[in-house]
């Protein structure tokens, strides 16, 4: 582990440590041939500015990319799906390059035309990690460009998902248009209303007053018909479903305000309330925009199609290799899977040495070896050499993808009714009763002002303050949470998090670090013979601890073993030549148990004498113990692991014995569902595909990832692994939303009382409405954003302390 820094040299291209200094050009040293090649390519076309913009900007080229990896891009149909614009001369295509990380990358990728003169233009969208390339398709093709990108270290990522018709929409243009136009109309209406405000409705020049009124009316038309359109649609939908959402009373208020204003202006009886109306619409549009701001780089709706490769190599009857898109893969096809590739469908192993890494699918930490004739399930990654497999099930029918056919994936996204809708229901009820009482009162007292009083009530008591408090609180909270590496899919999720009472964790990759167990040896100095002994014995055992030790020891010749015996839960025993050897737990060896170490120990005893012990530690995330002791106070914690029960004892402590091992993806889903049946509101924290079902089934699914641009399964929240140490604080923060929203509810009700007291008397002048509306909106906006920032103080303080430490 320790690196001697005095002799350290780093690669000129990628910044990795160089083991030796044999690969170099002039004084520039490279860690591998790959890095050197990239440098040579760039040097030839004078693109070495790449290296002057940032130090060692490149990516390691140690993993070689197979030559014909992109052969599948020659497929015409596939090309047609990838190319989004084509004329007789040029084509436009976007590549997703997850490796993009610095300004050098932008510079290089925008100078691609120097590397291939058929590329007309390339433009980077750094946030999306995309490069859009325009090229002459007569001189080059998609495959060549993909190979060019790969050769300079940016291997484009293609997945089944990237050719589906549903394109990712990162932002909605019409929403921005609406805000712009409404804002324009609102500010101009405001300006034209100023003379009215200052003269308090008594303007001398009648012509001018009328002109201003008609101008206001003209400006309010786009606000009403374009800006407010969404509210009417949403209100209409909710009424059709016999459910009153927050938009219904808002739409009613906008409608009545507009109708009364039009009437007043045309009849010449007044100026109307168009300023208030457009102001409300403007603020609400901003609030919605703020709340629905999406993260450019993150995708929350991934399913298995995002993981699977686009193309596979099949071997046809004449044993010729051929590339086909994965969607054309059929039962009976013979396929070839190379190292580091994902197996796209359930297959039978035909030829080759399979060592499949299922960590992402099942949570098992160690690769599994499979023999010829055995079934290999889809989703695993081959870590050995190339394999030949025969497909036994369609891609969509495989063991892994079946999970997505579960009803949890087709259920409606609406998980529960937000209390904003509930509040708006009561609000509307109270409002209508006030309006009814007022109209009855004035009917007897002075029938002439019934209409004016009732419409004033509906105008002034618009529930927009409710909506504003929710949208602005959520919007600001999303921003704060994002700052701490907690990316929430949708604002409603924050409210859901506040209701959680049970948290279920996955083990591998979630509470442990991805780079798994570390192994150390304590005890007497060991000679070669002893190591050879231990290695030969552990080779016989299937126990994960034995496997770890086996891999830890240096390779040597196997010895002949006699009387091998494996005692479940204790250890293994064998005789090798004249030596009796025992490896196992302290109890097995008759050794006093010491509980001081974390992780599992395996003691070694040879001929009755203790030699030493191996300590196998899983590296847990930083701050785990503190986190769990905090979380325990608030939540019921559970652990569902797809892995073995190696660390059972330690985990039992953390989870009050609510630990379950060897859980299949389906088991996890069922477990969550049964918790929900007992009226628990469950948060699932996971990382891999094996948790996909549970994440979907749970009320809130959180994915922990060490690189947020990595592929994570469908979920509600993506959390940066580094933020795990704030997890309890983040949850606490989400619970506080309710306080903020309730406070602003109270404030908005106070404003409503003031406004209503004028309205019920039939004395609501446009000026009062025009003052009350912006003042109340601005207070709400300031209060909610201010409070939500203030409540983040704990998070801020904690993160500052942590930063100091590191």
């Amino acid at each position, binding site marked *: 582990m320790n690196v001697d820094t005095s002799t350290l040299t780093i690669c000129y291209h990628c910044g990795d440590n160089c083991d030796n200094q044999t690969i170099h050009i002039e004084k520039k040293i490279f860690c591998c041939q790959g890095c050197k090649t990239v440098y040579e390519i760039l040097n030839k076309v004078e693109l070495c*500015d790449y290296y002057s*913009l940032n130090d060692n900007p490149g990516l390691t080229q140690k993993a070689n990319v197979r030559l014909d990896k992109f052969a599948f891009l020659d497929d015409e149909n596939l090309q047609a799906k990838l190319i*989004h*614009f084509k004329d007789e001369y040029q084509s*436009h295509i976007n590549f997703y390059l997850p490796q993009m990380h610095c*300004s050098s990358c*932008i*510079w290089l990728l*925008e*100078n691609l035309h120097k590397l291939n003169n058929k590329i*007309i*233009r390339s*433009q*980077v*969208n*750094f*946030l*999306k990690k995309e490069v*859009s390339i325009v090229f002459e398709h007569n001189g080059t093709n998609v495959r060549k460009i993909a190979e060019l990108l790969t050769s300079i270290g940016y291997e484009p990522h293609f997945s089944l998902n990237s050719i589906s018709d549903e394109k990712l929409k*990162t*932002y909605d*243009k019409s929403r*921005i*248009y609406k805000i*712009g*136009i409404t804002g*324009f109309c609102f*500010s*101009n209406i405001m*300006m*034209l209303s100023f003379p009215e405000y200052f003269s308090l409705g008594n303007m001398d*020049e009648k012509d*001018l007053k009328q*002109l201003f009124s008609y*101008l206001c009316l003209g400006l309010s038309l786009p606000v009403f018909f374009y800006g407010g359109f969404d509210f009417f649609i949403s209100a209409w939908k909710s009424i059709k479903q016999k459910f009153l959402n927050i938009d219904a009373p808002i739409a009613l208020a906008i409608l009545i305000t507009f109708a009364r204003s039009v009437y007043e202006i045309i009849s010449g009886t007044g100026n109307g309330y168009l300023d208030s109306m457009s102001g409300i619409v403007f603020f609400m549009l901003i609030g919605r925009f703020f709340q629905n701001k999406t993260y450019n780089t993150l995708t929350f709706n991934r399913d298995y199609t995002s993981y699977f490769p686009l193309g596979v190599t099949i071997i046809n009857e004449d044993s010729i290799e051929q590339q086909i898109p994965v969607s054309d893969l059929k039962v009976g096809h013979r396929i070839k899977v190379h190292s580091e590739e994902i197996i796209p469908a359930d297959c039978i192993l035909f030829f080759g040495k399979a060592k499949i890494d299922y960590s992402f699918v099942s949570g098992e930490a160690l690769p599994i070896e499979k023999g010829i004739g055995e079934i290999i399930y889809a989703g695993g990654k081959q870590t050995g050499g190339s394999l030949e497999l025969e497909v036994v099930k369609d891609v969509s029918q495989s063991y892994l993808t079946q999970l997505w056919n579960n009803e949890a994936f087709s259920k409606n996204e609406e998980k529960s009714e937000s209390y904003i809708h509930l509040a708006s229901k009561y609000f509307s009820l109270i409002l209508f009763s006030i309006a009814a009482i007022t109209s009855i009162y004035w009917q007897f007292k002075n029938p002439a002002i019934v209409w004016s009083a009732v419409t004033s009530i509906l105008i002034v008591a618009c529930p927009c303050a409710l909506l504003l408090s929710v949208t602005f609180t959520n919007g600001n909270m999303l921003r704060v949470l994002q700052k701490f590496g907690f990316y929430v899919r949708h604002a409603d999720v924050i409210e859901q998090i506040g209701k959680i009472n049970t948290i279920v964790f996955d083990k591998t990759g979630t509470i442990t670090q991805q780079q798994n167990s570390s192994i150390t040896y304590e005890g007497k100095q060991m000679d070669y013979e002893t190591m050879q002994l231990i290695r030969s014995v552990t080779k016989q055992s299937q126990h994960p601890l034995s496997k770890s030790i086996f891999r830890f020891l240096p390779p040597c010749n196997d010895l002949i073993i006699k009387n091998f015996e494996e005692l479940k839960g204790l250890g293994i025993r064998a005789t090798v030549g004249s030596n009796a050897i025992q490896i196992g737990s302290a109890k097995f060896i008759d050794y006093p148990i010491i509980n001081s170490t974390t992780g599992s120990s395996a003691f070694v005893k040879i001929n009755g004498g203790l030699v030493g012990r191996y300590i196998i530690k899983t590296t847990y995330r930083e701050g785990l113990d503190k986190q769990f002791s905090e979380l325990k106070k608030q939540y019921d914690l559970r652990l569902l692991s797809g892995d073995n029960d190696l660390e059972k004892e330690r985990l039992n402590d953390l989870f009050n014995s609510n630990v379950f091992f060897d859980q299949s993806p389906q088991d996890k889903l069922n477990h969550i569902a049964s918790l929900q049946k007992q009226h628990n509101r469950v948060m699932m924290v996971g990382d891999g595909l094996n948790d996909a079902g549970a994440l979907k089934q749970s009320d809130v699914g959180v994915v922990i990832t060490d690189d947020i641009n990595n592929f994570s399964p469908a979920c509600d929240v993506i959390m940066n692994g580094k933020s795990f140490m704030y997890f309890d604080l983040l949850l606490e923060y989400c619970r506080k939303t309710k306080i903020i929203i309730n406070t602003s509810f109270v404030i908005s009700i106070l404003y409503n009382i003031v406004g209503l007291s004028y309205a019920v008397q039939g004395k609501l002048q446009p000026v009062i409405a025009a003052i009350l509306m912006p003042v109340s909106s601005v207070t709400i906006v300031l209060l909610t954003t201010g409070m939500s920032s203030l409540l983040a103080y704990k998070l801020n303080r904690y993160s500052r302390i942590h930063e100091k430490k590191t």
Partner: protein
Amino acid sequence: MSVIFILLGASLLIAIGFLIAFLWSVKTNQFEDDYTPSVRMLFDNDVKQTTQEPKSEN
């Protein structure tokens, strides 16, 4: 007071000018990526490079 009419017209015209500028900027995808251009402008253009105006796609 007739000066007000002129001022009114002028102020509306200016405002409409800005509105059109805003609509144009949205239409030409200037809000799509708010990071890359800030980096791009710092690169030195060498003489050989043929600059092409970024067009809106589709």
